């Protein structure tokens, strides 16, 4: 029980932070709390939230994935090229997702078989994947798709924008995998104590490799939404996305040491970042100052977490 207690207590704190932030913005600018603006926030948050879901798997397993932004670009380019060559939409999407998952698995193999630190392996991939995207497109965006594809970003389901629905589905599935399946349990125990997990007979390298595959897949799902929304796939898309995803995960209370955390916190973390950006935009705060504010929020969120933990022990 205490474990759930601690986890939910931490999550409640993050949720309270989100709530307080929203009330503050509502007081400062009435336009914040309108249905259209809130839907707008959710829509803006969707891409970061989906990447952060994959990042949460990686960070719980005790790793880090710096390549997600580049994988968004590469998967988007692959998807766009498939669409332009006349492939049916589902097949093109499958191609994009396959590229994301495949490159993620390569990250994982570099870490498990190659015994590279995750930071280095994914830093290398960040550059390699970006280079592949640029090489493949000769540096030019691929634009103009079938309205059927663009509907993935523009249509609404019962008034809810499709990207928001997609995010919800991704989180429901990811949550199920993380908390109900063997794979999810192994992700936690590898992050908690890799050697004890190995000695318990778990094929650690396989599951660790899959974790990076999941992260690559999440990036590719985000790439589908991004490409549909912009009606264009850019080889320079997704720059700095890794930092937003790590920030959302960490603000959500997942420990960078691994073994602890969850998706409930991550979605709140992503929303805090989305709400903050939206609110600062509405208030007309310059984007330069926005960067400073967001950076400080990340640092303080983690500072509060580490201070609370230090006090407990």
């Amino acid at each position, binding site marked *: 029980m205490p*474990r759930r207690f601690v986890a939910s207590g931490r999550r409640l704190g993050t949720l309270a932070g989100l709530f307080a932030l929203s009330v503050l913005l509502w007081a400062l600018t009435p336009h914040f709390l309108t249905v259209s603006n809130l839907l707008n926030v959710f829509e803006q948050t969707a891409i970061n939230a989906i990447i952060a879901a994959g990042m949460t798997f990686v960070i719980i397993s005790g790793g880090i994935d710096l390549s997600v932004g580049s994988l968004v670009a590469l998967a988007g380019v692959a998807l766009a090229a498939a669409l332009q060559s006349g492939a049916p939409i589902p097949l093109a999407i499958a191609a994009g997702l396959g590229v994301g998952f495949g490159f993620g698995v390569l990250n994982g193999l570099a870490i498990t078989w190659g015994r590279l630190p995750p930071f280095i392996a994914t830093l290398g991939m960040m550059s390699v994947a970006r280079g592949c995207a640029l090489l493949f497109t000769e540096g030019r965006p691929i634009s103009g798709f079938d309205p059927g594809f663009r509907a993935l970003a523009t249509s609404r389901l019962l008034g809810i924008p499709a990207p928001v629905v997609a995010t919800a589905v991704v989180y429901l599935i990811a949550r199920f995998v993380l908390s109900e*399946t*063997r794979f999810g349990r192994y992700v936690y*125990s590898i992050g908690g104590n890799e050697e004890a997990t190995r000695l*318990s*007979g778990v094929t650690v390298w396989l599951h660790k490799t899959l974790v990076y595959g999941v992260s690559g897949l999440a990036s590719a799902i985000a790439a589908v939404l991004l490409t549909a929304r912009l009606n264009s796939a850019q080889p320079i898309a997704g720059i700095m996305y890794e930092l937003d995803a790590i920030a959302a995960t960490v603000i959500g209370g997942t420990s960078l040491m691994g*073994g602890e955390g969850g998706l409930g916190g991550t979605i709140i973390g992503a929303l805090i970042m989305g709400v903050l950006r939206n609110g600062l935009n509405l208030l007309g705060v310059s984007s330069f100052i926005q960067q400073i504010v967001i950076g400080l929020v990340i640092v303080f969120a983690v500072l509060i977490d580490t201070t609370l933990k230090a006090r407990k022990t």
Partner: protein
Amino acid sequence: MRGICKRFPGVKALDEVCFDLRRGEVHALLGENGAGKSTLMRVLSGACTRDAGEILLDGQPVSLQSPRDAQALGISTIYQEFNLVPQLSAAENIFLGREPLRFAGIVNRRRLRDEAARLLESLGTTIDPSARVKDLSVAEQQMVEVAKALSLDARILIMDEPSSALTESEIDQLFAAIGRLTSRGVSVIYISHRMEELSRVGHRATVMRDGRHIATLPLPAPIPELVRLMVDRDVADHFPTPSRARGTELLRVEHVSRGPRLRDVSVTLYRGEILGVAGLLGAGRTELARVIAGADIPEQGRILLDGQPVRLRAPSDAIRAGIGLVPEDRKRHGIVPSQSVAANFALPQLPRLSRVGVISKRREQNLAARWIADLRIKTPTPATRVLTLSGGNQQKVVLGKWLAAGADVLIVDEPTRGIDVAAKMEIYQLLDRLAADGAAILMISSDLPEILGMSDRVLVMHQGRVQALYERHEATQARVLHAALGLAS
């Protein structure tokens, strides 16, 4: 040192210990693993504080609350694992943090090198002060440590097993250096398991046992006398009386070698027996356990189960073959501390508890509830995190995880280290019951009474080899210790 006491949760590590050291003497400190030698030295070096007693230096009481205090009083310790920065030069290591400076914080390299050279020379070595420590031999690194202690004006030098990694000629050099130190009035406390060499280097020896001072006698002293002092005590009668019959052969290890710590080891393990494995630290016992558990792959030799050769290339192979390992280092290798008791129990058997990859939480809870009751694990709920449990209860979780998995061969490495007496009894009874039910248990322990009290047979290892194998009625403390020390029986 007078009347030193130190308690750890559940154990009295030091009980009214007195120890005196004269100027310029080499005082050997002897005792089995866990006799309290290290704790006493940790108190003297300020690494841990005493609960009672006083320490007098030149007749004056001193406070000694931290390693810094000890350093200021001229007490230096050289641990088995050196505290050197391998990438830096010998001279830089000797003066680390106290570099001779010119103005504005610039290191005076010439003085650094000259003073280091002077110190090293005074020890009779020819080490180049600008050589990087990682390029030096173990013996040379040790001399750098000694020089570092001298640069701190050490008057008392504590050396923990200084000769264990040295060759014969290097040991001669070490003793020569120690001779130079004592002639200058430096006192040396020398901890070693190598009986033969104590009489060569030491002036007096103190024997410790069970956290108590047993005797202090002048050296040279006859080795059998020292061994008797080290082990002479009643074998506690709190062990369950073995009432089991040895069954058929279950596991056989044939000529297994791996690295320097495991050389041509052969062992046979029968159903329904507890085979105790004794030996000093570093004798290769844990390495043997890891090879059988599939955690390490042997370079040579083979392992047979029920007469059939098995390939154990990963822990998962061993588990499938019914072999479970309760590792020596519980925190690092045994438990996943951030996970619940139930999740720790379930870890090796998740495939059995899940269908198409989805865990049945109900079956997981049932499994945990059953074993928590059976092993009387004190935990508020199965969902409690393992890290909040006591050491004894954590150990029961690790044991229970293998019982739940139905292991036939159970390897327990130091099963009762760091746990309280009551939990120890329970673990003894549990191991006894398992063996009676037909499991084969390989029990590694540094606790001699535990080995003698629990085992049907005792295997003694020394420097990676099997030194001796005794039946229960043949095994005595003196015999086992003799073999563990590498002395002919």
